[in-house]
């Protein structure tokens, strides 16, 4: 290894984990915000659950648009796989954080997609509890 390559490897060895840590911190901040909102809505709030998030993901809600009865309509039964927008055909990057580490790091983006997709799948807004459960499920995937 030449010196520049060692330097590059060193930079990568530091920068890649740092980026991952930054993404984790961003996700934690978003989860904390949802936890605060959930607690404000229900004093009995007892944290988020990946299992409940998975149920939310796999439930056939059929709440609104016939093309999107479930999260799986676009994101498939395996969130680690790429999906496809059931309305437009556009490919969608995997929803699972393990294969898509930049997911859920921008609150504005996360809120935009919950607002649109909950309306389209459930036919209503998702509660802060549901948003946190969903994210907890995807963070573990």
């Amino acid at each position, binding site marked *: 290894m030449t010196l520049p390559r060692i330097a590059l490897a060193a930079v990568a060895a530091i920068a890649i984990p740092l980026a991952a840590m930054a993404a984790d911190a961003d996700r934690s901040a978003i989860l904390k915000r949802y936890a605060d909102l959930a607690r404000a809505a229900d004093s009995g709030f007892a944290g988020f659950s990946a299992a409940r998030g998975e149920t939310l993901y796999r439930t056939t809600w059929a709440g609104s648009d016939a093309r999107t009865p479930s999260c799986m309509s676009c994101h498939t039964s395996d969130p680690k796989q790429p999906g496809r927008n059931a309305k*437009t055909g556009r490919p969608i990057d995997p929803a699972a954080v393990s294969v898509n580490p930049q997911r859920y790091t921008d609150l504005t983006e996360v809120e935009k997609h919950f607002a649109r997709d909950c309306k389209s799948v459930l036919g209503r807004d998702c509660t802060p509890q549901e948003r946190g459960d969903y994210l907890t499920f995807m963070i573990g995937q």
Partner: protein
Amino acid sequence: MGQFWMPGALGLLVLIFSTAGHAGGKFVAPVTDAATQKACGECHTAFPPGLLPARSWAALLDDLSDHFGEDASLSMDQAAHIKDYLVTHAGDAPGGQGLREFMRWVAPSGKPRRITENPAFLRKHDFPARVWQAPDVVTKSNCQACHAGAAQGWLDDD
């Protein structure tokens, strides 16, 4: 762009020769604005602005809460920026790169919403139902399903 004015077999012949430069490809100026590309492109093809007149883009951007049945609302700033970009690059924008072949079908005060209903589009996409029903296609507006270079403006004859 003169070839698009000629109808029928002669027009087709000219089209074949005029597009030979890029593997039968046709270049339609794509979206070059990053914010527009992101906001439109995260749900569907970021359609080339030259395929609709300015008044169509303005109407679409003013009505994002009912965007073909979807609530595609953006912040006011974002919507205003994207509207400005699409209107200034629209098919009928002065000095623009609009596609006359598409624009000539648009009625003088017409405000079409769907590019896929333009007779110019339909003429080029006269396929049997099984083509449209292929699992990767989903809708006629999914350009990339068949045109791999659509995002870069290449709408070749795949």
